[in-house]
């Protein structure tokens, strides 16, 4: 059953480079990676070694605390590399797929296992709030929430992405209904209306001791496919765009796909007409897996994040700006009205008549130095929760766990504060502050 909610507070950032509505099939990409760091609270234990042959859906890593929770290989092939980071932290397990099998039509159907359970390869797609971990099978969620609209800047249109997979989606919902009531919610309004946190807070906020499960709409279809056919093929229609993308459009990928080929096309290939960014790029490009507001930076030969459904290419802004704080700022975007571009915003209807028009160029520059919180009242305009954002952030900074609980920390995730962080004139790393506070609470809760 689809529910609708309306949100008023928020902000749609006018970022260039929205994906055009045509899908390019890129399921023939060979290299894939499973990235345990993308999964909050997951302590990976390796189940394979380099050179092993794996099949699609075979677990590559399992959680040390709960061996039922695993991250499976998206394709059949051989384990090419096990990438470790600082302190030997497991970063990626890279699998090279066999071309034929990648297309996926030949995988055998096994209806016996097609009953959704924690052992199913698709279980990791279920996330749990608070904390955003993989759904704990021992918990009883009070609901399972699915957002039917992604409102992040340049996010894919989920309805378009799911075209032709409606029956799989329905099968997925049916499988989830065995665990808790499922709410498919279509949110109207500016970002963060489509964020799952906003939706849960609007319908039935999480209290201490409660939890809800959430699933990406595309993963519901993946779960449905697995239930219908027993085939594990974690497909994502991914919107590739951003101000630095040459030809933003959709790609059909498997989760964890290597993005090198796509980035090469988007950044170097000049046979595409330059659609999004007519300006000449002077800085290197940052590749972000996920939303530009809360995604992860990856290298040009990096992999799509476990839960991501968009890729954003944006210019690095590592340049000085002479007297940036004093200039009229016709090209600067600000949610406040402190720049000329903002002051002209209310007169958008008159824009054709203006001799000079505001055009925004976004890059990754911070546009200022870090300061204490001075100004108040703007967070509330982009934060559609019944929570006092500034007070909660301050409680997180000082590490007052009790106060955090009272102020509603369990209702939020770092991504819910992404817009606050974006508009903050004090340039505070708000998402990091919230993430660290949640991390402390999660460890306390599981200990």
């Amino acid at each position: 059953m689809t529910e609708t909610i309306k949100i008023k507070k928020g902000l749609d950032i006018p970022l260039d480079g929205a994906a055009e509505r045509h899908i390019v099939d890129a399921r023939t990409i060979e290299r894939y990676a499973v990235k345990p760091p993308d999964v909050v609270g997951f302590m990976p234990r390796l189940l394979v070694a380099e050179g092993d042959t794996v099949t699609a859906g075979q677990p590559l890593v399992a959680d040390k605390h709960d061996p039922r929770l695993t991250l499976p290989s998206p394709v059949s092939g051989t384990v090419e590399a096990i990438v470790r980071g600082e302190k030997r932290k497991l970063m990626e397990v890279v699998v090279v797929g066999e071309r034929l099998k990648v297309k996926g039509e030949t995988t055998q159907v096994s209806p016996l296992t097609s009953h959704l359970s924690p052992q199913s390869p698709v279980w990791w797609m279920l996330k749990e709030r608070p904390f955003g971990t993989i759904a704990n099978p021992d918990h009883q969620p009070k609901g399972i929430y699915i957002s039917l609209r992604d409102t992040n800047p340049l996010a894919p249109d989920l309805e378009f992405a799911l075209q032709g997979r409606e029956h799989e989606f329905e099968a997925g919902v049916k499988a989830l209904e065995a665990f808790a009531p499922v709410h498919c919610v279509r949110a109207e309004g500016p970002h963060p209306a489509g964020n799952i946190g906003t939706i849960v807070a609007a319908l039935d906020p999480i209290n201490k001791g409660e939890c809800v499960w959430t699933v990406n709409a595309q993963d519901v279809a993946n779960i449905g496919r697995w239930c219908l056919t027993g085939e594990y093929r974690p497909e994502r229609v991914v919107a590739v765009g951003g101000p630095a993308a040459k030809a933003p459009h959709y790609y059909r990928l498997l989760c964890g796909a290597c993005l090198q080929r796509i980035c090469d096309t988007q950044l170097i290939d000049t046979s595409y007409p330059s659609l999004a960014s007519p300006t000449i790029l002077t800085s290197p490009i940052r590749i972000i897996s996920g939303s530009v507001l809360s995604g992860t930076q990856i290298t040009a030969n990096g992999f799509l994040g476990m839960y991501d459904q968009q890729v954003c290419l944006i210019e690095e802004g590592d340049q000085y700006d002479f007297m940036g704080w004093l200039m009229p700022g016709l090209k600067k975007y600000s949610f406040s009205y402190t720049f000329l571009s903002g002051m002209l915003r209310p007169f958008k209807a008159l824009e054709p008549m203006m001799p000079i028009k505001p055009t925004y160029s976004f890059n990754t520059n911070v546009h200022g130095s870090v300061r204490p919180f001075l100004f108040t009242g703007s967070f509330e305009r982009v934060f559609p929760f019944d929570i006092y954002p500034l007070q909660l952030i301050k409680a997180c900074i000082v590490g007052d766990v009790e106060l955090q609980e009272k102020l509603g920390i369990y209702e939020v995730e770092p991504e819910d504060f992404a817009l606050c962080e974006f508009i903050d004139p004090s340039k505070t790393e708000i998402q990091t502050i919230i993430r660290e506070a949640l991390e402390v609470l999660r460890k306390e809760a599981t200990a």
Partner: protein
Amino acid sequence: MNMKWLEDWFEKIEPKGKWSWLGSTYEAFHTFAFTPKTVTKSGSHIRDAVDMKRSIIIVVIALMPALLFGMWNIGYQHYMSVGTLSTFSFPLFTCFWFGFLRMLPLIVVSYAVGLFIEFAFAQVRHHEVNEGFLATGLLIPMIVPVTTPLWQLALAVAFAVIIGKEVFGGSGMNFLNPALVARAVLFFAYPTHMSGDKVWIAADLWGSDAIAGATPMGDLAAGMRPSASALDMLIGTIPGSTCETSFIAIALGAILLLMTGIASWRIMLSVFLGGGAMGLLFNLLYTINFPLSTYLELTFYYHFLMGGFAFGAVFMATDPVTAAQTNTGKWIYGLLIGAFAVLLRVCNPAYPEGMMLSILFMNCMAPLIDHCVVARNIKMRERRAVK
């Protein structure tokens, strides 16, 4: 504009080694010239163009109409009282130049003392220099009498910056509005220089005796009806603190502050609502012949035009650090400031100006107001969890 040479110069002179203790000072000047080239490392990859410098400079720009008018008015009041100028001939530039020369030392002293202390504290703490004082340092000379001795001003600024702000950790951590702390210090330490009818009009630079000229509030405190008309007060051609006399000039600043969203419209509006309500209440008491003072018959909106009410409402009460921080709290905070200011004016003739004390008092109360507002949210959450 190609400023590569300046970028290079700054990179060349960056203090290293035995000079690295000068980091904060270098950083302050460097970020003054260039918005840094820092890129985002975590969280949101893009950021809003607004920063603290931009926000503070908007406040400074918003102060300009009041400052320029104040300079002119200093000259105008002077020439009017020494009698070399009739009401209908006031050479714009002569008046302005006179006022400019009287204002400049006040501004220079305020900025020099305040910024020196700010830099020193930042340097010792290895912090970056905060922009907040750019507004505070201009606000202080704008709310004192033009005849304030420079050494007193310097003392007050130093007190305000150190005790009012830095001991709490600097901008953003203080709970009293530093500009008003400076004025309060002057007011209580040197009352003869801050009130009465001898301080509001500047004498000639060299010598001549102080000139008497009562402010409308002085008249009222003395039990008389004010000699200035409402129009005079609206335009601001009355004696008073340097830059707070003109309602219109202040309103121009208020428009910029509200348009840019730098000041809270909730606070500004509610201060006027609170003051107006209190004024109306006193008008009501007048109709039943309540024996209190001449103030009772003063039509309520005169309070907005007189003294520092408008200036306080627009530039002081809205200081986001010392105001209430929740939206509901801002309404309560503003209403009470307005109400207390009028109450003090009418009921306590010892202090002709109630605005300063009212705002400082509510600065102290703001955390309590916020606490109550947030407590309601906490209660709601607790009730929901029990349900």
